[in-house]
């Protein structure tokens, strides 16, 4: 496996977690989510976020409201639902476990 492929697979797995994490801070506009994800190099192509958000909405983890904007059409602002908050805390626990395991493996010396 090349390093590129390694990165892609890991990012993909963590995308949902990161998106929920960003939304959990409070109402957020879709493009701002994308900008942040791009800056931290979690996503490369932006289009993938839309199906993901749609799926999170369908699962009941997030919801959105329309807000008027002074530049252009109304914008979608995403918020976390109660189920989403639960789901996120579960994911956080899993992430911490994985993080710990990986660190352990990396620090053990022969």
């Amino acid at each position, binding site marked *: 496996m090349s390093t590129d492929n390694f990165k892609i697979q890991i990012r993909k797995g963590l995308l949902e977690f990161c998106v929920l994490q960003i939304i959990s801070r409070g109402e957020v506009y879709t493009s701002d989510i994308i900008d942040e994800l791009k800056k931290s190099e979690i996503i490369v192509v*932006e289009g*993938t976020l839309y199906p993901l958000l749609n799926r999170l909405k*369908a699962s009941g983890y997030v919801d959105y409201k329309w807000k008027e904007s002074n530049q*252009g*059409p109304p914008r979608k602002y995403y918020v976390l639902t109660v189920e989403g908050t639960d789901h996120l805390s579960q994911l956080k626990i899993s992430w911490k476990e994985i993080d710990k395991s990986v660190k352990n493996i990396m620090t053990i010396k022969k």
Partner: protein
Amino acid sequence: MKKTLSINIGSKVFNIDNDAYELLKKYLDSIKSYFEKIETEEDILMDIETRISEKFSSIINFSESLNLKDVKNIINEMGSVDDFKEIYEEYSIKEESEFNESTHKDYKNENRKIFRNLDDKVIAGVASGVANYFNIDPVISRLLFLASLLTGFGLIVYIICWIGIPGKRVGMLNSSKRLFRDGDNKILGGVAYGIANYFSIDTAIIRIIFIVSLFLGGFGFITYILLWISIPEAKTVEDKMRAKGYEVTLENIEKYIKGAFKKKDDEENLLIKIILFPFRLIGPIISGVFSLLIPLFRIIISLILFVISIVLIVLMVLFSLGLFNLINYENFIFGSIEGAYISGIDLSIIIGELPIYLSMSIILFFLVSLLILIISVSRILLNAKNINPTTFIGLLFVGIILFVFNSVIISQVINEWEDTGQIQEWIDDGVIKIDNWKTYRY
């Protein structure tokens, strides 16, 4: 100098170069057709358009126009249909592992529901729906339907399927290589070109085979017409690429538009051109006839159903009158119906002699048939969609049961009448003409 167009995307207006516009349109179309298949309630396309619009306004000033490079950059940033697919594939894997065995089965059954494919149709999408269900190329099921039409049986099955199977827009399924007619390179209907593409051979060979077979008892002609009806025309770039067996990826779409994939069809030599010339002439005429025939077909079916409905109504009135012994009642609305002859049998007398429960059951049967017909006509002619398929199948079922029940009882009643000599009496009175009776009974 370049020609520019003005587009409205995400409620903002932009100037865009013609070639850049083509690419952007193909891109958005590919996304659209992909998400239509998935059937999400949310408008992903709108979100994506809004985002693209934001990007556009960040890179250009009001007076500038977007060029091919701008659009390409944005498409690279947004990602292709393949990137979206990954997200959904993951999702479906998750779905399956999350649920237990029984829900897993339901999920599969959901997928195996049959429906008429409205995105891939010649008349009503029945054949392509059946093909999707059995995972075969729609061309095969279309040919089967056409062949069975000759016996008349296929027509009835087709109409029942049309009414009973719900319609759905699911796009063209079978994403791999498919047989398409190609309108860009056609002489008659593009059949030969499509076949040549499918088997990756030279179009001229197929064309010559068709023309030669024309002189072998017209076999080629019928085959050609059947294939013309059965094979869908490649309308979008995606279809055209699929016809040639290319994966529909963004890169390929771009290459295709730029003409990298286009075959040079100018290589036809003079002899082939001369042979094909008369066919190029009659092509438009035949396709014109076709586009007339299909609505005509709809109208003819509806007309037949309409006539049957009228007959049913008349029979219902007749049997209802018979039930209340009003059929020969003087000065009733109809005066006296003294000659409701069907094939030489005077129904007006016989109906009065039927047992009441049988009359009622026959009337019920007519009523159900009439309902079925009304639903059929509204579906076929008016394209009504508010009819619940389950209700329709239920009606059909009740109709069949009533038909069987009535047939059994009627034959019993007739036997009884024969035994008591009633039939002979009627024959003597001229109520039943003896010749017709014989052909009925024997």
